[in-house]
């Protein structure tokens, strides 16, 4: 077996090690490269900015702890922005395994902003049914969620004053890691009950949501850690996403180098084969 052949069949654990180092080192020694803001993230920010105080902002945290590294920073940045704008925040989740995480992150950001549960924000928790919950909320929010996550009846909560259904929501954002997520919120929510919708998602599914963005079905899209870093830069509160971008930069470059190296070996092997054939 030639050197090129051996390199092409390299033990994948060596590749894992390279990626591991490329992730770890920038996290330990951050560089802080500037981040360019994309129009799709800017549209979400601009729409949030345009909302008057005490408007109703619905954040559907449709992911589980597995997608935490990418979507948690997005949720934190959006909540910080919403609380700073003094919006009424209604949070919920369509993913049962994300309930505890969603509650923690909302409570953490609300405490940081000095906001009061029930008055400035509410966490509705999870309700069974997946996409059916969106339809139920479109008809009657109090039937879909008779009580909040803490067990308090939702009817009569000051934060939900004048809110009866999704029609009363000024802006909704779904941070989705799959199904149900952004697409479900468009099909069963915005399309039926006419409210403005934005989206956030993991980097893997972001390209799949571009058609929704281009057709105006969602007014903006925060894609992956990069999107979160852009949003953090926009609100001027840099957090985990910005810190993570250096690591992402290094891993992307490492993968490009690996692909280049593999192609060099591949071509040298092909040339050898040709020479032997000729």
């Amino acid at each position, binding site marked *: 077996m030639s050197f090129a052949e051996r390199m092409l069949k390299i033990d*994948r654990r060596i590749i*894992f090690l390279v990626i591991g180092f490329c992730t770890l080192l920038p996290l330990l020694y951050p560089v802080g490269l500037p981040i360019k803001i994309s129009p799709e993230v800017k549209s979400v920010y601009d729409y949030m900015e345009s909302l008057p105080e005490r408007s109703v902002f619905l954040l559907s945290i449709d992911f589980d702890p597995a997608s935490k590294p990418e979507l948690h920073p997005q949720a934190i940045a959006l909540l910080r922005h919403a609380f700073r704008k003094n919006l009424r925040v209604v949070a919920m989740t369509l993913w049962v395994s994300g*309930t505890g995480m969603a509650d923690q992150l909302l409570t953490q950001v609300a405490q940081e902003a000095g906001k009061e549960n029930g008055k400035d924000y509410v966490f509705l928790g999870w309700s069974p049914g997946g996409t059916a919950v969106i*339809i139920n909320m479109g*008809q009657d929010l109090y039937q879909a969620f008779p009580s909040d996550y803490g067990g308090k009846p939702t009817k009569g909560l000051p934060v939900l004053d004048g809110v009866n259904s999704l029609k009363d929501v000024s802006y909704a954002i779904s941070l989705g890691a799959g199904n149900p997520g952004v697409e479900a919120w468009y099909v069963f929510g915005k399309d039926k009950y006419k409210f403005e919708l934005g989206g956030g998602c993991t*980097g893997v599914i972001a390209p799949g949501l571009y058609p929704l963005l281009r057709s105006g079905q969602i007014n903006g899209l925060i894609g992956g850690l990069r999107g979160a870093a852009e949003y953090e830069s926009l609100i001027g509160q840099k957090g985990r996403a910005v810190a993570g971008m250096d690591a992402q930069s290094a891993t992307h470059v490492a993968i490009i180098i690996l692909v280049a190296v593999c192609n060099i070996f591949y071509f040298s092997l092909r040339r050898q084969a040709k020479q032997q054939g000729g």
Partner: protein
Amino acid sequence: MIFLRRQLPLLITMVTGLLFAGQYYVPHPASEQLLTSATKWLQIIGGFALVLGVTSLFHQHAAKIRRKEAGWGYSVVLYAGLVGTIAVGLWANGKESVDGAMTTFGWVYNFMMVPLQGTMFAILAFFIASAAYRSFRARSREAAVLLIAAVIVMMGRVPLGEYLIPASGDVSSWILNVLNASVRRAILIGVSLGAVALSFKIIFGVERSYLGGGKE
């Protein structure tokens, strides 16, 4: 018997299929109410179905333990995990924290489920790298074009890439917004037509193999 196994399910499929296809065109609240009721039925059926799933899980692993099959110890771990989580979940009334204090269920969630799920997702980055190394080769002209596009998008999506090649950000946005979006739309059109055709076949009983394979 054949009526219960074949004709009745086909009749239910046809009636409900036509009813809910029609529901899409009726904006009246009564139609919305019908949809809500149906989704609630689905939730209830889903609840019972979970019993079916858990029974299958218990049965399969019980058999493994009984027969002392290879790796039967993992089945014991599964039993312990399942029963243990249900017990602490019931004890904590399904809450991860009460008045700011973490419950046992919360501990299981925060210190077992969160890191385990995070680990699984994190493996993805390593697998992407190894899959890219193994298969991303310019074997043909088309593969070379794909390779170049991938490199541009990867550079354009991170600050270091944009720093090294300033145009990569705009070019990657163009690739994502124009080329990627149009190709995905094309796939979507094909998929949607396929799904509509399949739905028609199911509603009118032309496709019935999902009821149990063969023809009558």
